[in-house]
C-alpha cells in the first residue's frame, strides 16, 4: 500500500489552507491575458516572445487579446510620445480590474535614450502616467527577459514562486543558474 507521504512532492495533491486572495492570486497568475499593444521596436521582441520559439503560452500568458476589455496585463513595449500618452492611459482605463502593467524596455522605464535637456516630445517613462508592476530592462530586452518579467509578475500575484501551486516547473536555485 502506498501512503501519501511516499509520493514524490510533485504528485501530492496541492491541498493547502489559504485565504481567498491567495487562491485568486494563483488562478490569476497562471492565466494572464496580455493586450495586443505595441508602440515601438520593443514590441517586435514581445511578438517573438509570444510566438513559437519562445512560446509565452507555456506560462499561461500567450494569448494576446485584441481588446483591452478582455485583457488584464498591459505590456508597454516602446517609447511613449506625448501624443500617444492619452491613448495609452485610455487603454489602461478600459481594462477591467485587476490589471497589471509591465514596462518593457528602457524607453518605457525611463524614457531611455530620448531623455536629454530640451527634448519636448517623449514621456519620461511609463510611471509618469501609469502604475507599473514590473520593469523589464533592455534596449530591447530579449524575449527571455520579457518571460522573466512575466514570471516576476506571477510571483508578485502569488506572493512568491513557492506558493504558485499551479506552476508546472520550478526555477533552478540561483546558484545553479548558468
Amino acid at each position, binding site marked *: 500500500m502506498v501512503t501519501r507521504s511516499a509520493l514524490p512532492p510533485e504528485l501530492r495533491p496541492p491541498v493547502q489552507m489559504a485565504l481567498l486572495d491567495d487562491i485568486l492570486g494563483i488562478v490569476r497568475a497562471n492565466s494572464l491575458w496580455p493586450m495586443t499593444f505595441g508602440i515601438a521596436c520593443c514590441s517586435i521582441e514581445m511578438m517573438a516572445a509570444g510566438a513559437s520559439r519562445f512560446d509565452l503560452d507555456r506560462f499561461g500568458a500567450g494569448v494576446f487579446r485584441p481588446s483591452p476589455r478582455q485583457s488584464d496585463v498591459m505590456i508597454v513595449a516602446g517609447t511613449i510620445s*506625448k501624443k500617444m500618452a492619452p491613448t495609452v492611459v485610455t487603454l489602461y482605463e478600459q481594462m477591467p480590474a485587476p490589471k497589471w502593467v509591465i514596462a518593457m524596455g528602457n524607453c518605457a522605464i525611463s524614457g531611455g535614450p*530620448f531623455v536629454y535637456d530640451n527634448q519636448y516630445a517623449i*514621456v*519620461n517613462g511609463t510611471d509618469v*502616467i501609469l502604475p507599473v508592476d514590473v520593469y523589464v530592462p533592455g534596449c530591447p530586452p530579449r524575449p527571455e527577459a520579457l518571460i522573466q518579467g512575466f514570471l516576476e509578475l506571477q510571483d508578485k500575484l502569488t506572493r512568491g514562486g513557492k506558493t504558485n501551486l499551479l506552476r508546472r516547473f520550478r526555477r533552478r536555485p540561483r546558484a545553479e543558474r548558468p
Partner: protein
Amino acid sequence: MSFLEDIRPVLAQRFGSENLSDQERARCGYDLRLALDQERLLELAGLLKEAVCYLEYITAVDQGQVLDLLYFFGRHDQPPFRLQVRVAMPKGVAVPSLANLIRAADWQEREVYDMFGQRFAGHPDLRRILLPDDADFHPLLRDFKPGPQHGGEVVNLERK
C-alpha cells in the same frame, strides 16, 4: 531618352530657365532644382501629376526671415528622376496647399505646419500631426527654446 531630358525643356520654358539649375545626383540626391514663386506652385504640381511624378516629401529650412519650403517630386524611371522645388516664403504668409490635388501632400503639409508653423491655404484639415494638439510651439524653428514646461515629466492627458 530619359525623363530628365524630356521634362527639362518643358520646365525651362514654362517656369524660366534662370530658375532651373542642374544638380549632381550622386552628390545631393536630385537631378534638378527649381526655384519657384508660390503663386505657380499649383500649376507646377498639376503639370508634374500629369507627367506621372509623385510627391516624395515636403520639408522646410528656417532661413531667419524666410522659410524655404522644399518639395521633392520623383518618378520611378530608369534612370530615376528627382526634382527639388524651392519656394521661399516670408514667415507668417500662407502658401497654397497641394492636398486637394495630391492626397499625399495632406499629412506632409501637416508635418511642416507642426514643425515650422507654416500655414497652407486650402488645406482640408490643418492640425498638428506629431506633437500633441495643445502644443504651443514649432520645434524646428531656429528661435525655439525648449524649457522645463516642455520636459518629459509634463504630460497633458486631456484629449480634445
